[in-house]
């Protein structure tokens, strides 16, 4: 419950609500009445309104009973529901329609009714903003009902009610109030996702808000709302589900392009904002599946994506897939793409959780056999450098990846096998050699990695994990396999590896493990050290030397 503080702030907003001139004492009296009596009274008042015009004053009475004057935290929902019925009936009956030919008094009545209706709508918005969750949900339903009635029966209001009237209030209430998750999900589930016209206008409203709004929380809400629309209508989609039946005639509402345009606008408005890092990552993560399909002109995303790509780190990794989409689909020309890609291979890459995602993409980028061998060699060398400090799960990917690269670029196999010329041999014997590879060089064509050798992978053949060592050994065997399916090597983790070794429960062992034959003379203490002449050389001496067990 947003309790008193919210009430206090909102009371200022409701200056316009003074129309309901019922004294508070009376309201209190009503509130104190037995609830059954109230219900009876409400239904009686409602009946009277439907019976004759002379009871229209009951509307004012009911509005006063709504109990939202100062504070909408505790509204009388029964009244709200009955009022909704009353207004729906009135709107449907055309009582609120202004006609020029009508008599003066008719006009006065209509104007008065309109005034009351506006009052009621304001009250509902207040409830939406301030009421408790159930009240909010009810108010939402009532609002939507009124919206529907107005759009159907009042001529000229079929778009106006969506754009500026009550619907705008609803969206604002949904977006701006705190802790309105329930309301939001209700709206999304029951209306926005269900009915295509509601979605259409929601996009418009969101675009409006996003253009002006800057605060992070609101953006979060907007992003989450937008991302909820994850099913993009296909080109042959027929628009049938409309909340307001008359929307069918509206051409805008039945064309896919206009729908997409609205969505695109909304997204762009959001993207133009000053996004936080995490929001950016979220957006990038759903870029390919949720955002790009909505875009008629995906190239509009280019700025956002290139900006993200230039941020570096994980954001770049994430931007890569969106960028790839553009390159592939929209023929985007990205200058120095490979240089950028090369720069992404940094110390944290292999430890990040986007590792396999990145490798999938890189596999695509480096798949072409027309890439220069120097470039490929740089990538290979860089990856093997990184593998020296990588967790086993990453090494497991890198080695087959390198294998595939070597297989498609046989020139690079010099990195595995280089026969030394005789004249260079003497020099080598005398001075040894340094790695010709320049790790600092940002341009992958100039690293002279092709002159280097893959000592790193060779070293990993002595990895502590037997399976990793076995994989590293493939580079020194004959390259008989056409290629390794990279997908099989991705998505390994420590947890998975440990579980693969240990299983989840105890099972009888196939083979009895070997037991160390050295009988431990000492494990923690200096037991019987004198026998060895005071020098601890027994197994485990390393730990004993560094640590004091007391």
């Amino acid at each position, binding site marked *: 419950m947003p309790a008193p503080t919210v009430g206090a702030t909102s009371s200022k907003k409701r200056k316009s609500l003074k129309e309901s001139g019922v004294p508070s004492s009376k309201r209190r009296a009503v509130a104190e009445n037995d609830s059954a009596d109230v219900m009876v009274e409400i239904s009686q008042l409602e009946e009277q309104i439907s019976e004759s015009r002379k009871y229209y004053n009951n509307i004012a009475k009911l509005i006063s009973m709504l109990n939202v004057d100062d504070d909408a935290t505790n509204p009388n929902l029964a009244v709200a529901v009955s009022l909704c019925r009353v207004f729906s009936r009135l709107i449907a009956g055309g009582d609120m329609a202004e006609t020029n030919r009508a008599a003066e008094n008719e006009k006065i009545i209509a104007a008065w009714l309109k005034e009351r209706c506006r009052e009621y709508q304001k009250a509902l918005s207040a409830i939406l903003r301030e009421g408790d969750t159930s009240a909010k949900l009810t108010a939402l339903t009532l609002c939507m009902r009124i919206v529907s009635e107005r759009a159907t029966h009042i001529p000229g209001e079929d778009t106006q009610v969506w754009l500026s009237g009550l619907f705008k209030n609803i969206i604002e209430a949904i977006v701006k109030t705190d802790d309105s998750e329930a309301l939001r999900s209700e709206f999304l589930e029951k209306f926005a996702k269900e009915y295509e016209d509601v979605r259409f206008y929601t996009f418009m409203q969101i675009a409006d808000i996003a253009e002006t709004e800057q605060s992070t929380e609101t953006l979060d809400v907007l992003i989450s709302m937008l991302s909820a629309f994850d099913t993009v209508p296909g080109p042959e989609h027929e628009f049938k589900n409309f909340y307001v039946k008359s929307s069918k005639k509206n051409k805008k509402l039945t064309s896919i392009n206009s729908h997409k345009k609205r969505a695109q606008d909304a997204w762009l408005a959001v993207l133009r904002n000053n996004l936080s890092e995490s929001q950016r990552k979220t957006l990038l993560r759903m870029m390919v599946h949720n955002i790009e399909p909505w875009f008629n002109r995906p190239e509009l995303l280019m700025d956002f994506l290139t900006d993200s790509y230039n941020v570096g780190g994980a954001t770049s990794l994430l931007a890569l897939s969106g960028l790839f989409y553009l390159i592939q689909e929209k023929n985007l020309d990205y200058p120095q793409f490979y240089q950028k890609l090369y720069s992404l291979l940094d110390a944290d890459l292999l430890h990040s959780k986007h590792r396999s995602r990145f490798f999938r993409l890189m596999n695509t980028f480096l798949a072409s056999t027309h890439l220069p061998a120097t470039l490929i060699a740089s990538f290979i060398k860089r990856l093997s450098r990184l593998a020296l400090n990588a967790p086993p799960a990453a090494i497991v990917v890198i080695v087959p990846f390198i294998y595939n690269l070597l297989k498609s670029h046989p020139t690079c196999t010099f990195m595995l096998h280089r026969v030394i010329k005789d004249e260079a041999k003497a020099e080598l014997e005398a001075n040894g050699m340094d790695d010709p590879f320049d790790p600092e060089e940002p341009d992958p064509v100039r690293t002279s990695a092709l002159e280097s050798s893959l000592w790193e992978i060779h070293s990993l053949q002595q990895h502590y994990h037997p399976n990793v060592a076995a994989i590293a050994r493939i580079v020194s065997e004959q390259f008989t396999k056409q290629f390794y399916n990279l997908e099989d090597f991705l998505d390994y983790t420590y947890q998975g590896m440990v*579980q693969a070794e240990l299983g989840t429960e105890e099972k009888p062992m196939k083979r009895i493990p070997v*037991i160390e034959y050295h009988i431990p003379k000492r494990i923690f203490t200096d037991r019987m050290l004198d026998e060895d002449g005071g020098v601890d050389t027994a197994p485990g001496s390393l730990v004993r030397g560094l640590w004091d067990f007391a």
Partner: protein
Amino acid sequence: MPPSQLKQLKASLRDSGVLGPQQSKKQKRQNAKSGAAAQNRVQRNTALQSIRDRFNPFEIKAGGTRTKFDVTTRDGNSGTAASRARPGVTKSLGEEKRRQTLLREMEKRNKIGGILDRRFGEDDPTMTPEERAAERYARASQRKMRKESMFNLEGDDEEEEFQLTHKGQSLNDIDQDDFQEGDLGEPEDDASDSEAARKRKRVLFDDDDMDGPEELEDGEEHPERKKSKHEVMQEVIAKSKFHKYERQKAKEDDDDLREELDKGLPDLFEMLRGVKPPPKPEPPKSDLASMNPDRAALLEGTAKGDTEKEYDQRLKQLTFDKRSQPTDRTKTEEEKAAEEAERLKALEEERVRRMRGEDVSESEEEEDKEEDEGSEMSEDESIPDDAKVFGLQQSSDQTSTRPELGVEDEDDFIIDDDLVETRSDVSLSIGDSDEEMLSAVESEEEDEEDEEDELINGNVGEASAGADTPGDSEGLAYTYPCPKNHEEFLQVIEDVPREDLPVVIQRIRALHHHRLHPDNKKKLGQFSRILIQHVAYMAEQPEHPPFAILENIFRHVHSLAKSHPESISQEFRARLREIAADRPLNLRPSDLVILTGIATTFPTSDHFHAVATPAHLCLSRYLGQGSVNTLADFAKGAYAASLVLQYQSASKRYMPELINYVLNALCHLAPEEPKGSLGIFPARSPEESLRLKISKSLNSRKLQFWDVVGPESPKAREEVKLSLINTFVSLLSTASDMWSDISAFLEIFDQAQKVIRFLDRSCDGKIPSTVQDTLQSTLDKLDGHTMKARLSRRPLLLHDHRPLAIKTAIPKFEDTFNPDKHYDPNRERAEANRLKAEYKRERKGAMRELRKDANFIAREKLREKKERDAEYEKKYKRLVAEVQSQEGREANAYERERRLRQGKR
């Protein structure tokens, strides 16, 4: 024009030498003598046959296909053979065969009953009657022999039915007549024989009929009288039964004798084992002599072959027997030491083999193959997974394969045996409840005291810091139940002071030694698991237990692991599993203790080990991902890093996580923040700064194990930081020693050098000299190793393989091609084709035969019908003729009568 047939015949006869000038009588005689006549005759016959063939063109069928070219083929002159077919001969042969079989059947058709002649050789025309009789006699006697098995008391009667007779007398009787037993001597034996037979007969006939005895009496008194057949039968029965009884008796005697001989066998063997060459086992001739002669004959007759065979066998065995050697000589100390060294060397070799991952025994290979096949099978169904080839699996269960216990096992067993003996002694002495005895046993075996013995014999006194003198543990009970789970164990040791725990464990082990009860092995297996649980439990206690006790328990675990490797490894794996599931990134002190225990219990250098490999993974995971927020975390990390290095001290495998962790930790413990990246190790920063505040007053100390819990006071914190730096740097130094041979040493330790230099700079010489020294020495060492690595660096030469052969596309030529053969590379199809052809051939043949049969049958039927008709015709004619003749006769008679009457008239 060729000459006439007759002329040709004459000419050919002359050519072949059938006709020739007549030989003189002398010549003839000579020829007959030298056997040339017979030869001539054979020659003449073949010549005649060939001439006959030549002159009857219908006898020989010409080949179906004439040979186009004169070629020699491998499969001989098949064409000529075909052209030599002689249809006439084959036809007549087939006809003959049918007459013998089919015709018989035809004749027998619709006929029931008849007599089957089963006499031997009755239908065989090739046998002469004499041969037939001889064969029949032989068969009859054989059958009789067969029937007379030793224990066949019944069934003699039926045999009599098949006895051959000669002039109504049994052939056997005739035999007996011919061959008088009395001639062989021992008349009294014979008499007793008949006496016994008589008695038997009496018994037999007593209640049968009244006439029996009288008849018998008669038979005895008047041997001349011809015995009735019945009598003869009875006599024969009685005699055979008596013989049977006799044989049984003899057999029993033989058995007794054999037993007696068997009793002497050990002595005999002993004698054989001696230095003397094995004397020939004396055949028990003397026994035979004293035995009943016919029994001896029997024995010799029946068992001679067997005994000889057995004797030969024995003899062979003996020749192959090793000469007995003086094995029991007590060994000298040096020899024992050498033997021990030998054993250790073998074990070490074994370990190195495992380290290289070469330990694949035969059985394992087989199993692997099976597994491969199995996986292939499964792969057939799904997409093949490249990663699986390397044993990688996506977190699914994998039953780990590990090397079979090889030779080492035996050695273990030997150790165990020694151990067992001492242990059983111990258990006995404990049973006597005599502490002194215990120590006495110990002192007795002092010189051959093993570490194990020490454990069992309760010399834990010094291990538990001298607290465990016999006097101290007087309050302990001598018997403890073997606990089934950890709770029970905790109950058992509830009242036991912590220092006496080793004594309790030792007593439980001694009391439940597996020699004492078959269930004990299982119990001790469970107990070993409890011990591991207890170590973890103790390490978690707030008052830190003395490590001497933990160590002692681990030593117990190690010695138990030799006899219960399965349960120990299962328990360790369970602990690891728990770590991996609950707290992979935040190890507890108890986990560290357990991981230390693994290092001492299992060979961590193995290429793959069911416990060591997961332990490695656990540690490296902690190093790679564990939290680095507090000093305690760093202390834990330092311990884990030392442990990892300890694991790899023999196998020297590379561990990226260790380097990453140590460098990262140093960067964050250094007094200043490094500017820029120092390497490609991932940076993980603690939440709050843990940088060292430099002050000269600080002192580096050896890290305490319980630092992993975290120091309290700020002063202590700084001290721990400094010590951590010291430890990490020395770990780097050790690691650089360990991995100095790795080809990427430069790349790995380049970062380390940078980090240490930075550390050196940031400390700015204001740290205690000990740490400064460590830093400097490590730097020097790294420099040295780097120099060496640079000098020894060569470009890789990994692909010095023999180039792969290009797949050949040359068709496979047959050197010995035969168009009649089928060279189908698909074996199954070839086999199927072969079977089809065979079936076709057989079917054709069978149809032809059936057709011929039908023809034959039709022919036979026609012949029969013709015969029948002819017979009928004959009969008819005969009857007509008879009637006619009768008529004629009667007509004549009538004529005569009439003439007579007319004449009279």
